[in-house]
């Protein structure tokens, strides 16, 4: 089977979907902690999709890829832990 390549068009559809889903989940976020976590994770996925696909960082040296993944993971983890405490 041919390996499917992620294009800009696929990416924008995923980004729209995650944005709308986050908007819907916000109705539950103050009451259900998992909804807050889901919104944060969706934000992280969107961040990485823009960086890796639109900004073509998928082609970059691993240093740049790692720095972006570490940044967004630390950000989500920190926000999640502060909110959970």
């Amino acid at each position, binding site marked *: 089977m041919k390996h499917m390549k992620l294009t800009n068009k696929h990416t924008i559809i995923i980004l729209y979907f995650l944005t709308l889903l*986050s908007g819907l989940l916000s109705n539950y976020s103050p009451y259900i902690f998992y909804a807050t976590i889901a919104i944060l994770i969706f934000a992280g996925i969107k961040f990485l999709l823009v960086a890796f696909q639109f900004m073509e960082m998928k082609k970059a040296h691993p240093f740049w890829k790692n*720095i972006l993944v570490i940044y967004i993971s630390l950000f989500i983890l920190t926000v999640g832990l502060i909110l959970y405490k």
Partner: protein
Amino acid sequence: MKENINYKNIYYPPGGILIWIIILLELLTFGIALIAMVVSSKSNPEVYHSSRLMLNSTYGVINTLFLLTGGFFMAEAVRFIKKNNLTKASFYTAIAILSGISFLILKGVEYYEKIEHGIGLEYNSFFTFYWLLTGFHVVHVMVGVIILAFMYKGLKSVKSPISPESFETGAHFWHMVDLIWLLLFPLLYLIF
């Protein structure tokens, strides 16, 4: 244009190393400010919840869609300038400029409504963060739209056309505006 830059070299990330230093600094600055906001929310959870509900999350969602659309068209414009298709590249840049302007108009409406209701910088700590974070972001969007307008002019110019490398760097500034908003949007409009 033939892609002759080796992006796998640590010194040549897509867009150039200088724009990436700026992007990382901006992300760090906004990231620290957002974490400070989350820390502050722990001492006033009710104030943050009621204040968040005073924001129109539909505006937030629509503005996110505007910025993402602009980002998509800039990514396509970069793809086409690399194929030397300047007609498509300039058309897509124009759409990205329009989405940036649409973002600014809707943000202006949102700001007007807040000011009308007397919700300013000193209303409470949530709105202090709201005005400062979105205000600085709006300045970035304005600068981004101006950069895109210059890039559009450069694509049309015969005398001094824009180079594909400079075009890609400018596009990266626009994507940076996107990246910052993707962090601001959930924290200001959705989670509290």
